[in-house]
């Protein structure tokens, strides 16, 4: 659920945990999000193409994982926050039928820029870590 009240920079402390997010991975989500990100690479919508690459089914594209990194952090930070950067390391693929649980923790704050670094990890229930990395988000000095 989206937090419609934006967090102020001073409200956030290193070590704060973000509310976890559970995402049901379906063929609809994988394919729909691949198309919404304009990524028509066959492995994201054509099962036989994914199988030719050694996986049992279509799998989530990188742009979607990147999008979930951002959404997860803005859900917590609120609408007046500004995403400044995402670094994303990809792990095990997300396939239909999996459930990905995304967790996060505030790792650093920069008083000068008002930018907060949040470490984010998305782990699926079958193959483990799907994505991990850092989202840099600017928070208003006052809410």
């Amino acid at each position, binding site marked *: 659920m989206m937090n*419609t009240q934006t967090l102020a920079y001073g409200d956030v402390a290193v070590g704060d945990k973000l509310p976890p997010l559970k995402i049901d991975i379906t063929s609809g989500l994988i394919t*729909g999000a691949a198309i919404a990100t304009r990524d028509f690479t066959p492995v994201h919508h054509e099962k036989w193409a994914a199988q030719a690459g*050694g996986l*049992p089914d279509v799998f989530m594209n990188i742009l979607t994982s990147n999008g979930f990194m951002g959404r997860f952090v803005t859900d917590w930070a609120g609408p007046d926050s500004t995403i*400044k950067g995402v670094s*994303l390391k990809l792990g095990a693929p997300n396939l239909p039928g999996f459930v990905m649980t995304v967790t996060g923790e505030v790792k650093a704050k920069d008083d000068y820029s008002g930018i907060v670094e949040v470490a984010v990890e998305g782990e699926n229930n079958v193959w483990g870590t799907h994505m991990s990395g850092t989202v840099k988000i600017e928070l208003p000095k006052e809410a």
Partner: protein
Amino acid sequence: MTPEERKDLEEKIHAFVGREVSAPTRGLDDVNAPMIRHYCEVLGDENPVYTDAGFAEKSSKGGLIAPPTMLQVWSMEGYPMCQEPEMDVQRELHKVFDDSGFIGVLGTNTTSEYYRDLRPGDQVTTHCVIDSISEQKATARGIGYFIETLYTFTDQNDEEIGKLVFRVLKFIPNDSNEADASDDSGDDGMPETPSRIASPRGHDNAWWWEAVDNGAVLIQRCKSCKTLRHPPRPMCGECQSMEWDSIESSLDGEVFSFTQIHYPKFPGYPYPLVIGVISLSEGTRLIANIVGCEPEDVTIGMKVKGKVEQVDEKTMLPQFYPLPVDKK
């Protein structure tokens, strides 16, 4: 691959570093509200500054913005990606790798920076160069090279609005990995949750694991000098005798040392995962999981009691519980 072939390949690929992949290209669609809405709809992103014009107007954004994570979306070529793609510098580079057997390709990292929020009407032009190619690396997927492609994005005023470094591994696939992936599905097509890594059983230690399968932890004993030893091996370190038998451990022990595995998490193992070196009362040491308590409560010297238990559908293992003993 001979050293000469490798040198030849590396000369060819390094000639690509610094080359522009294609001329700067303006996105097929400028930033626009319908594509933003579709993206937010599928990703379940309810941030009102992306889709609620009334809310966005009154917010600090002063109007609708695109999710910053959509930056690369504005550069995508769309449906032609699933037909025979046109050759560009990036695909030429991949072909050089393919021709040397590095046919695997895996996106491993993206690092994006967003310099400002984009609004409907903004025009996005993409500039793309091959930024770097690593030394040859041995990875879990196979031997390969990491290619970093740098995308720089500019707007209608030629101002930089963001950048993206995309890291790809081109590799010679390990056959075993491919077999794993394709054999890994159950009857309904869903991949099965992996079980624990099977114990390695060889000539000198299979008897020990077979005893564990039957619920007992044995300790090897030299027949000539009666010295106990573990892990199993053919010769006594004290008297060099190769004659041996075994005794069954009582599984009374104490924690000699321990560690907790945090990252990376291995599928098929329960977390938190604590692994101890247990000093058994018989005098040998055994590596096993410490369970039945919080990791914070494990201390060196803690008295423990072991039980041989079934830990997944295929695996019997000794595990150690803190005393008082769980009477079962």
